[in-house]
């Protein structure tokens, strides 16, 4: 039933100080599919996704145990900078580089990571903006400041910026929580397009969103993985009582 596994966590436990925020999570993300992670606030879903590209450890007094395998190789025994070039991330709030133009935002990864010919960078910027469904709106003003864009456009700019680095996996940490419904719809449509080329992992507190965009869904509760299944099964025939209670709105 499941295709090839692109990314996989094995007994992953992550700490803030001495306190574990997630415990013993083993989860497989199929190649070029969208996997959603749902669960009530504080269940560790954001912590978990931040472990998948080694962003968790950039905060002070944090620690990770266990493994995360990308194409079978443990990313925790690789250089984190190289890991993050293969596994991109989009954050909760749009965070474009305010000091840079639209063009410079999208080309940041290429410009700062090694030397590339100008026309190669130009092409990558256009391609990434097209993939992020932003090109038509900004093609006449790529040299204007990124902060001149609306919130929804800024988030798509952040997606384009992540794509320009040429990742294989795209992590999205509640990418629509700061956006209005129209902008949310655009991002959701975009996710449907992106899974043709990328493995997408999306954290969301919005159950309908998970149901709309995800092929697979994982339910987290109190730092543990409760259930993982194809989205349809999880929402229509949950195996766990907790999952059923959560998706029917009895807590959370």
């Amino acid at each position, binding site marked *: 039933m499941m295709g090839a596994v692109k990314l996989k966590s094995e007994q992953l436990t992550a700490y803030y100080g001495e306190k574990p925020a997630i415990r013993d999570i083993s989860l497989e993300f199929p190649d070029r599919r969208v996997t959603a992670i749902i669960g009530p606030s504080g269940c560790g879903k954001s912590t978990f996704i931040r472990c998948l590209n080694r962003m968790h450890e950039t905060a002070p007094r944090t620690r990770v145990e266990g493994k995360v395998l990308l194409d079978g190789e443990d990313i925790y025994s690789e250089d984190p*900078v190289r*890991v*993050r070039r293969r596994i991109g991330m989009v954050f909760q709030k749009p*965070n474009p580089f305010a*000091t840079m133009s639209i063009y410079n935002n999208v080309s940041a*990864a290429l410009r700062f990571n090694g030397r590339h010919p100008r026309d190669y960078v130009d092409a990558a910027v256009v391609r990434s903006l097209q993939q992020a469904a932003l090109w038509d709106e900004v093609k006449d003003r790529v040299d204007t400041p990124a902060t001149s864009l609306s919130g929804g456009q800024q988030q798509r700019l952040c997606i384009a*910026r992540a794509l320009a680095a040429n990742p294989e996996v795209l992590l999205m940490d509640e990418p629509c929580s700061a956006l209005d419904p129209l902008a949310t719809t655009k991002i959701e449509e975009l996710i449907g397009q992106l899974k043709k080329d990328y493995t997408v992992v999306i954290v969301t507190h919005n159950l309908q969103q998970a149901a709309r965009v995800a092929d697979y869904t994982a339910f987290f509760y109190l730092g543990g993985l409760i259930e993982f299944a194809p989205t349809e099964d999880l929402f229509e025939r949950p195996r766990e009582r907790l999952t059923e209670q959560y998706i029917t709105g009895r807590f959370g």
Partner: protein
Amino acid sequence: MRFDRPARRKFLSHSIAVLTGLCVVAALYPLVSIIYSAAIRGGGVLFQVRFLTAVPPNACSVVQCATVGIGPDIEGTVILVGLASLIAVPVGVLAAIFASEYRSRGLGRAISFTADVLTGVPSIIMGAFIFGYFVYYPSITYSAITGGLALSAIMIPIVTRTTEEALRTVPNSIREAALALGISKWKATLRIVLVAALPGVATGVLLAVMRASGEAAPLLFTALGSNLYFHGFNQPVAALPLLIYDFALSPYSNQQKVAWGATLFLLAAILIVNVASRYMIHRLGRQMAGGA
């Protein structure tokens, strides 16, 4: 007589208003009076021909002797502050980067604490310290080099603290965005975070330059002062604050006049540089925020 409640409250409110107003006057009085007396007594000499280029006068008791100028002292101050900035800006900025961006390590906290303490150290002690060190190297004990070092010791903690504060105002989401793109930490810090903090850093450097250009104490036994134009980094060098210190104590009226002229020039220069660079920093900030 007993006040009833509302009257008492009004009385208190008015008294506080008057009191705070008086404090404003007390706070502004020294500044206004300094500018006023410097303008009155220094204005005449400042606009004399060649005042900004001629060398300072020797002691002269004849009533009509020439006033002459402050050329070497302007040049010396520019050289000393320039030299000090060359040392203080990179050292201060890099120390601040370490303190702010690598704070989880104990040394980062130690740097901010040290900078705080150093900001409070009297400037004459900085001069004495540099003197004490270089007294064993007599060829440069009194020179532009030691003067620049003494001024840089004043500037480094100021640059460090203001840069650190500026870096802290850069939202963490910017650091995360850069790291998540696979940009290495030092590149993200230097080319994204520091650039975002640039207006704040520039303000700090400006503050330090202002402070250093007005300092006499650290130069007393380092730069020493001179009546001549700059003639080598290993030679004593003139400076405006030293000239003011010297000539203000002079019994000769021509030298006193020069001291007033130099005072007015220093005040005006600091004011002009301050306003001009604040305007530029403001524009830089607006440009970076995308409002330009």
